[in-house]
C-alpha cells in the first residue's frame, strides 16, 4: 500500500462528500433535533422548553391520526406489494411467452412520479365520473365505489394507487432472485415429485430471504417517506382522514408556522428509520468482527 501514502488530492476530492455528510445530513438532523427542544414558532428560537413539543405532539389529534394512518398504510402497502410482486415474479418465471412485455407492463408505473400516480388514481376513483360510474353503467346499479371521499376508506385508495406504482419493482427484484436459484433444486424436487407451488413456498422463498429483506427495507423506507402521493391524490382529506406524518410536518413548517412542533415530528419519524437500519448495521459489524 505504499502507493497509497497520505496524499492531498484524494482528501480534497472528497471534500464535497464530507460537507454533504457532515453539514447537510448529520448537521441538519442535529439542528432539527435541537429545534424540537425549543419553543420555536415561525423562526427558530433559543428558548429551551425540554420535551414539551413532544408532549404537545402526542396530545395532537392530527398527529396521532397521521401515525395511525401510516401504520395502517404501511402494513397494507408492504403486504400487498410483497404478495403481488412475488406472485407476478413466480408466474412470469413459468417460461411464458412475451416475458419481456409482461415485465415492461408491470414495471412502467415505477417510472411515473408519485404526483402523476396520485392524480391519475384520483381521476379513476372520482365518484360518479370515474370507475364508480362505469361499474354502475355496466349494469350494477347498486354498486358504490366512492372510497376516496369516505373518511374511513380513503387510506385504502392510497394503498391501491401506490401498490400499483411500486409492486412492479418488487416483481423485478423477486424475479432476479428466482433466476439466481440453483436449477438443481428444481431437478431434485421433480425427482421427489414435489409440486411446484410447494417448492416455491417451502424451498425457494426461504432461499430468497436476502431479496425479501432488501424489498422490505425499500418498501418500509417508502412508507415512512409517503408524501407526494397523498398530497396529489387527497391533500390529506377528506377532512384530515388521510393525513400522514410527513404532511403534518410540512404543514407545520411552512403553513402553520410551528417549527418546533414540526421538528419534534421529524425527530419521531427518525425512530422507525433507525430501527430499520439497526439490524443491517448490526449484521455488518458482526460480519466484520468475524
Amino acid at each position, binding site marked *: 500500500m505504499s502507493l497509497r501514502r497520505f496524499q492531498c488530492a484524494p482528501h480534497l476530492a*472528497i471534500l464535497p462528500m464530507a460537507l454533504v455528510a457532515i453539514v447537510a445530513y448529520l448537521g441538519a438532523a442535529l439542528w432539527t433535533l435541537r429545534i424540537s427542544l425549543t419553543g420555536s414558532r415561525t423562526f427558530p428560537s433559543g428558548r429551551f422548553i425540554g420535551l414539551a413539543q413532544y408532549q404537545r405532539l402526542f396530545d395532537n389529534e392530527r398527529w396521532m391520526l397521521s401515525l395511525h394512518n401510516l401504520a395502517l398504510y404501511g402494513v397494507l402497502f408492504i403486504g400487498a406489494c410483497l404478495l403481488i410482486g412475488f406472485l407476478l415474479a413466480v408466474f412470469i418465471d*413459468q417460461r411464458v411467452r412475451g416475458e419481456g412485455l409482461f415485465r415492461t407492463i408491470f414495471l412502467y408505473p415505477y417510472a411515473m*412520479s408519485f404526483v402523476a400516480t396520485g392524480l*391519475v388514481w384520483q381521476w379513476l376513483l372520482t365518484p360518479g365520473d370515474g370507475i364508480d360510474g*362505469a361499474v354502475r353503467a355496466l349494469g350494477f346499479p347498486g354498486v358504490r365505489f366512492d372510497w376516496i371521499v369516505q373518511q374511513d376508506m380513503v387510506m385504502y385508495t392510497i394503498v391501491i394507487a401506490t401498490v400499483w406504482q411500486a409492486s412492479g419493482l418488487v416483481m423485478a427484484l423477486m424475479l432476479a432472485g428466482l433466476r439466481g*436459484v440453483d436449477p438443481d433444486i428444481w431437478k431434485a424436487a421433480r425427482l421427489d415429485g414435489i409440486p411446484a407451488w410447494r417448492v416455491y413456498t417451502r424451498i425457494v422463498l426461504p432461499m430468497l430471504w*436476502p431479496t425479501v429483506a432488501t424489498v422490505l427495507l425499500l418498501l418500509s423506507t417508502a412508507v415512512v417517506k409517503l*408524501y407526494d402521493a397523498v398530497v396529489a391524490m387527497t391533500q390529506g382529506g377528506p377532512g384530515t382522514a388521510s393525513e400522514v406524518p410527513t404532511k403534518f410536518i410540512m404543514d407545520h413548517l411552512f403553513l402553520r408556522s410551528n417549527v418546533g412542533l414540526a421538528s419534534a415530528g421529524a425527530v419521531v419519524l427518525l425512530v422507525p428509520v433507525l430501527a430499520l437500519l439497526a439490524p443491517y448495521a448490526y449484521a455488518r459489524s458482526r460480519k466484520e468482527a468475524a
Partner: protein
Amino acid sequence: MTPPIAQPVIESMMEQPPPLPLRLPPPARARQRSRRRRLTPARIGIYAFLLMAAAFFLLPLYVMIVTSFKPMDEIRQGGILALPHAFTLAPWRQAWSGVCTGAACEGIRGGFWNSVWITLPSTILPILIGAVNGYALSFWRPRGARLLFGILLAGAFVPVQVMIYPLVRVMALAGIFGSLPAIVLVHLVFAMPVMTLLFRNYYAGLPDELFQAARIDGGGFWRIFLQVMLPMSLPIIVVAAIMQVTGVWNDYILGLVFAGRDNLPMTVELNNVINTTTGTRQYNVNMAATILTALLPLALYFLSGRWFVRGIAAGAVKG
C-alpha cells in the same frame, strides 16, 4: 445490484458486488425442461393471471390517454373506459399552453422548461461528484471516507422532512433560497448517496491491477481519474443518468420548497393545475397535463429498458 439485485441493499453497498448483467438468465425451471410447452389447464391459468394483472397495470395508462382526447361533455356522460367519440386535441393544447397553474394561465409549458433547466445541472453535477467520490472510495480510501459514506447511506433512508428546515435556513442565509442554484444544490445533496454508491460499486468491480499499473506509471489522483477511470465508466454513467433524470424530473417536495416561484418544476405546476384550481374540473385537460408531465420518464423507461431496470434497485433507495 442485480442478479445480486437480491443482495441486501446495505450489504451490497459495503461489499464488492459482481458486475451487473444486462440480461436476466432464463428461468431455472426452463433450463430443466424447455421443450414441453403444451397448453394445459395450468398454463391457461398462468396466462389468465398474467393477462388480468397486465390489464390492471395498464388501466390507468389507458384511461389517462382516452380521457385526454375526449371533450368534457362526453366525459360527463360517463363511460370512463369508453374510447373517445368526438376525438379532440383541444385538451392537450389547453394543458400545454392555456391552463391556469396558480396566478398565470399559460399552461404547464413553463413548468416543463423549468424542469428541463433543473434536471440538466441536477443530473450532470451529481454524476460528476458521485464518480469522484466512488473513485476515491474504491482506490484511494482517504481517511474517514468510509465513515462519511456510512453517514450518507444512512441519510438516504431518512425522510427529507428531517433535514429540510435547516437546509432552508442555510440557503436563506446564503441568499440563494428559492432559486435555481438552491434547487440544484439540494438535488445534489439528496442524490449523493445513490450516485456515490453506484460508482463505488462499479469501480470496486474493476481489477485493482489497473489502478496499480497507472500508479506505477506515475499517474496522480486526477490524471488516473480522467484518463483511465472516466473513459471506462460509460455504462455506469448511462445508468446513473437515467436514474437521476427520472428522479429529479419526478421530484415534487424539493422543487416545491426550494425552487422558488419562478422555477417551479412541472410536477408542482401539475399539482397546482389539478388541486388548487376552483370551478369545474376539466378532467381531459388534467389528464393531458399528467401525461405531459409523465412523458419524459416514461419515454426514458420504454426506450432504455434494461438500463432502467439495472439502476432501479439502487435508485429505489432514494424512493
